[in-house]
């Protein structure tokens, strides 16, 4: 039997995983997470998948464009602001 103090729940483990990314776990917490991941396949998947998400997010992009009306409005705004008063 593992001592009770080394056991963490899945809810805690999934939180620890985010903190681990930023090296914000104490040694005791790191040990607890390590032991939990040894026995919990679900949290292990969560761990892999959240790392994967972090990589994926960086590739996020959009092709959105301003309409020509929006651009004309911006140009007029700049024109007004730069013309001598």
């Amino acid at each position, binding site marked *: 039997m593992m001592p009770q103090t080394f056991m963490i729940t899945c809810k805690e483990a999934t*939180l620890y995983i985010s903190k681990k990314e930023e090296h914000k776990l104490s040694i005791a917490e790191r040990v607890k997470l390590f032991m939990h991941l040894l026995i919990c396949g679900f949290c292990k998947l969560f761990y892999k998948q959240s790392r*994967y*998400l972090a990589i994926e997010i960086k590739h996020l992009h*959009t092709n959105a*464009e301003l309409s020509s009306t929006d651009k004309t409005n911006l140009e007029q705004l700049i024109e007004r602001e*730069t013309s001598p008063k």
Partner: protein
Amino acid sequence: MTQTENTLKPKEWVKNYSDTLYRFAVLRVNDEETAKDLIQETFLAALRNTERFRGEISEKNWLFTILKNKIIDHYRKKASSLISEVDQLMESASEYFDEEDHWKESAYPNDWKTDYKAPVESEEFHEILNKCLNKLSELMRIVFTMKYLDEKESDEICKELQISSSNYWVVMHRAKLQLRSCLEKKWFTK
């Protein structure tokens, strides 16, 4: 002298930078009108502070710096009005965990059967990812975007949003649970 390279040419801003600035903003604020307002505010702030431009950085980078600050101001206002939702988040992770705080059967993570080290490049995947991000509560989306799109550390995010670190971790934890589950349903096990 490099004077000619780094001078401001406001009459060319719209042509040269407006779409790039707009895309940057719209990815981060998830609302076209807000993004347009931010671009307008950026140009206005730039025009009113031209004397502060000393040419150490390019005109483009200077405009981006202003826009980034405008986005942070926008985030901070949102965060202060939304922070009360954190208490509820703390209480109810019951979609994912049972009374003993272990995974509910209905929420068991599935293996995505993908190479977890190689990102999916397809446009459709990014569309789904964007949709899932937009389903997060606004506070979750802001925190997640700052952390992973802008690659900031949690300490910096807490400072910029003026939230406590315990609130930050609650929001981040929930954002990941929800995003993971959404992507699994809409893409990986579809």
